C-alpha cells in the first residue's frame, strides 16, 4: 500500500509531477544524446586513425621511427610470408618511406614520400576513395604522384603539374626525380594531407635503392575488437629484430583523445545530473511542504519516520522511473535518426575538425553499456536528491505539523 500511496501522491499535483517527468525525460535524453555524440566522435576518430591512417599494427626496422633514414628498411619477402600466414589479417600494405623535399616553380615543402602498392594500399586504407581530382595511382604512366589538397593549394600545383622530389638514398646520397601529379586527394586529416605524398613503391625503391625492401608494413585486422596486443606478440615472435607496434603506440594522441572524450562526457553528464538534481530537490521539497499536516497525521497515527522517509524516496524513484521510458524512447529515436543522417558540422567547424583528424559528419553512437550507466546515474541522482526533502519530512514534530 505504501507503493500505492506514493504513486497516488505523485498525481495530486499533476503539473508539479509532470515537471519532474519532463526534467527526467529531458535530462536522460540530453545525457544520452551528448554521450552518443561523444562516442560517435570517438569512434569516428578511432576509425579514421585505424582505417585511414595507421592501421591496427605497423612493423618497422627498430631504428626507423627515430631516424626515418632510407637505410633502416627490412626485406619484404620475410615479412610478407609471415603476414600471409596470419589468420585474422584483413589486409596489409608494405611501404617505402622517405623524408625529403617537394618543389615546383612556386616553392618547396618538406614532405614524407610514401611508396605504395596501389592495390594493397587501397585494401588497407581505401586511399583511392580520397582522390578528389584526377585519378588514383596505377601501374601505367611514368612517375605519377598523389598530392594532398592542402599541399597542392599551398604550392599552387595543378593536376598534371610537375614536381621534383629530392631525397636521400640508402647510401646517404642525395637523389631526385620529377613526378607528374596524377591525382589530388583529401582526407579528414588535414595535417597529414599537407605532409604526405604518394608514389608507386617501385618508383621510390628505384630512387632510394630499396628494391625488395620496405620501411613499413601496415596491418589491418579483421572485425572490431580484435585482440591487437595478441597479434602484436605473435608478430614479435615471428619477426625477431623488427619493431611491431599497435595503433595506440604509433598514435598515442588518438588514444589520448579517446580517453579525454570519456572525461568530457563525464563532465557534461555531471552538469545535466546536477540540473536534474536541483529540479527534483525543489519539486519534492514543495511536495513535502504542501503535505506537512498530512505527514504529521501519518506519524501521529503510527507511521514510523523510517516509513515516511521511504515513502518520499519512493515517490521520487517512481516519478523518475516513469520518466525513464519516455527519455529512453526519445534518446533511441533521436540517436537512431541522427545516427543515420549524421550531424554535419562542416559549415560550423569543418576545418577545425579536419585539423584534429575528425570527419566533419558526426554519427552519434549509443553503446548499450553506457545506457545502463546513465540509467543507474539518473536513478541514483533522483534518490540522492530526494534525501533532503525526505529528511525534512521526518524532522517534523507531529504535533506541530497537525497544528498547521
Amino acid at each position: 500500500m505504501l507503493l500505492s500511496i506514493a504513486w497516488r501522491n505523485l498525481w495530486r499535483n499533476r503539473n508539479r509531477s509532470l515537471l519532474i517527468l519532463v526534467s527526467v525525460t529531458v535530462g536522460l535524453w540530453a545525457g544520452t544524446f551528448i554521450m552518443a555524440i561523444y562516442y560517435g566522435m570517438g569512434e569516428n576518430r578511432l576509425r579514421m586513425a585505424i582505417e585511414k591512417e595507421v592501421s591496427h599494427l605497423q612493423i618497422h626496422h627498430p631504428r626507423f621511427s627515430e631516424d626515418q633514414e632510407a637505410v633502416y628498411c627490412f626485406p619484404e619477402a620475410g615479412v610478407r610470408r609471415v603476414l600471409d600466414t596470419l589468420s585474422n589479417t584483413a589486409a596489409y600494405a608494405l611501404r617505402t618511406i622517405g623524408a625529403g623535399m617537394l618543389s615546383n616553380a612556386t616553392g618547396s615543402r618538406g614532405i614524407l614520400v610514401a611508396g605504395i602498392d596501389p592495390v594493397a594500399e587501397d585494401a588497407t586504407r581505401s586511399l583511392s576513395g580520397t582522390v578528389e581530382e584526377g585519378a588514383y595511382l596505377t601501374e601505367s604512366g611514368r612517375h605519377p604522384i598523389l598530392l594532398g589538397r592542402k599541399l597542392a593549394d599551398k604550392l599552387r600545383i595543378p593536376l598534371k603539374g610537375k614536381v621534383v622530389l629530392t631525397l636521400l638514398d640508402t647510401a646517404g646520397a642525395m637523389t631526385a626525380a620529377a613526378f607528374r601529379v596524377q591525382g589530388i586527394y583529401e582526407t579528414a586529416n588535414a595535417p597529414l594531407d599537407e605532409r604526405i605524398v604518394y608514389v608507386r613503391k617501385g618508383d621510390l625503391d628505384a630512387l632510394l635503392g630499396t628494391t625488395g625492401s620496405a620501411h613499413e608494413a601496415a596491418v589491418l585486422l579483421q572485425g572490431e575488437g580484435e585482440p591487437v596486443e595478441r597479434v602484436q606478440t605473435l608478430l614479435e615472435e615471428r619477426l625477431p629484430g623488427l619493431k611491431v607496434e599497435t595503433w595506440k603506440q604509433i598514435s598515442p594522441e588518438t588514444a589520448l583523445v579517446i580517453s579525454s572524450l570519456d572525461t568530457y562526457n563525464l563532465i557534461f553528464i555531471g552538469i545535466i545530473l546536477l540540473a536534474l538534481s536541483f529540479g527534483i530537490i525543489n519539486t519534492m521539497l514543495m511536495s513535502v511542504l504542501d503535505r506537512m499536516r498530512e505527514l504529521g497525521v501519518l506519524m501521529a497515527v503510527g507511521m514510523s519516520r523510517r516509513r515516511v522517509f521511504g515513502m518520499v524516496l519512493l515517490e521520487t524513484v517512481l516519478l523518475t522511473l516513469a520518466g525513464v521510458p519516455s527519455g529512453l524512447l526519445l534518446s533511441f529515436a533521436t540517436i537512431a535518426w541522427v545516427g543515420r543522417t549524421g550531424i554535419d558540422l562542416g559549415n560550423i567547424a569543418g576545418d577545425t575538425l579536419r585539423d584534429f583528424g575528425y570527419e566533419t559528419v558526426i554519427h552519434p553512437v549509443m553503446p548499450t553499456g553506457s545506457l545502463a550507466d546513465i540509467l543507474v546515474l539518473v536513478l541514483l541522482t533522483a534518490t540522492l536528491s530526494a534525501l533532503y526533502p525526505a529528511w525534512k519530512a521526518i524532522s517534523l514534530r507531529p504535533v506541530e505539523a497537525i497544528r498547521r
Partner: protein
Amino acid sequence: MDTQPVMQAFGISKIYHPETIPVRALTDVDLRVNRGEFAALVGPSGSGKTTLLNIIGGLDEPTSGSIVVSGTDITSLSPAGKIDFRLYNIGFVFQSFNLIPVLTARENIEFIMLLQRIPRDERRRRVGELLDAVGLADKAEVRPAKLSGGQQQRVAVARALASKPQFVLADEPTANLDSHSAANLLDIMEKLNREEHITFLFSTHDQRVIDRARRVITLVDGRVADDRTLVKGAG
C-alpha cells in the same frame, strides 16, 4: 466500567517557550482515566485541553510530569518508540478528520492495520466490520473528498479503532459537523464504548458531546478545576 486505569497523568506541566517568553499551558495536572470511560475534557479556549490531549497521546512532551498509558510510561519513550506505541495502543480522531486524501475510506482504515503487519484476510474482515459499525459499508471505495464531513469523521473513528486500541483520544471530533452528523457520530462512539469497552477521552467545547459524556473534566488555566462523574448515559 472497569476500575483499572488505562491512563494516568502525574503532575503534568507544560510551559511553551521556557527560554524566551514562557507561556504556561498546564500546571501540575493529575488525572486518571479508567478502562471503559466515556469522558470529556472541557474548558474555555486556551485552558489547555488540546495540549493535555496531545501529551496524553505522546504527540507532545510535558515540561514535567509523566504519563502512563496501559502500564507504559510514554514520556520516557523515544520519538520512534512513541510512534510505535501509538500505533498499537492509542486511536486518534482529529477535529479536521485528517484522512489521507489519496486513499479510499476502506484504504484509510486498512492502512493502520497494514502498518501493524496484519495479514490481508484479517485486515479485510476487520475493515468490513468497522465500516459496518460506522454505517459506511456502501462508501468503502469512495475517497474522502467525495464524502460529507460527517461521513469523513466516521471513517476517522473507524481508522482510530482499526488498530484495536483500548484508548481513543478525540480532539473536538464534532466541531466541524452539523447536528445530525454529530449525533450520529456520538451514537456510534457510545455504542463502541458500551459494547467493546473502548475508552474515549474527548477534548470539546460542544455541548452535544458534554451531554453524552459520563465524566466531565473541566480545565481552567491549565489546571483541573472540576472533575465530575455523571450517572447519565450508562446505556
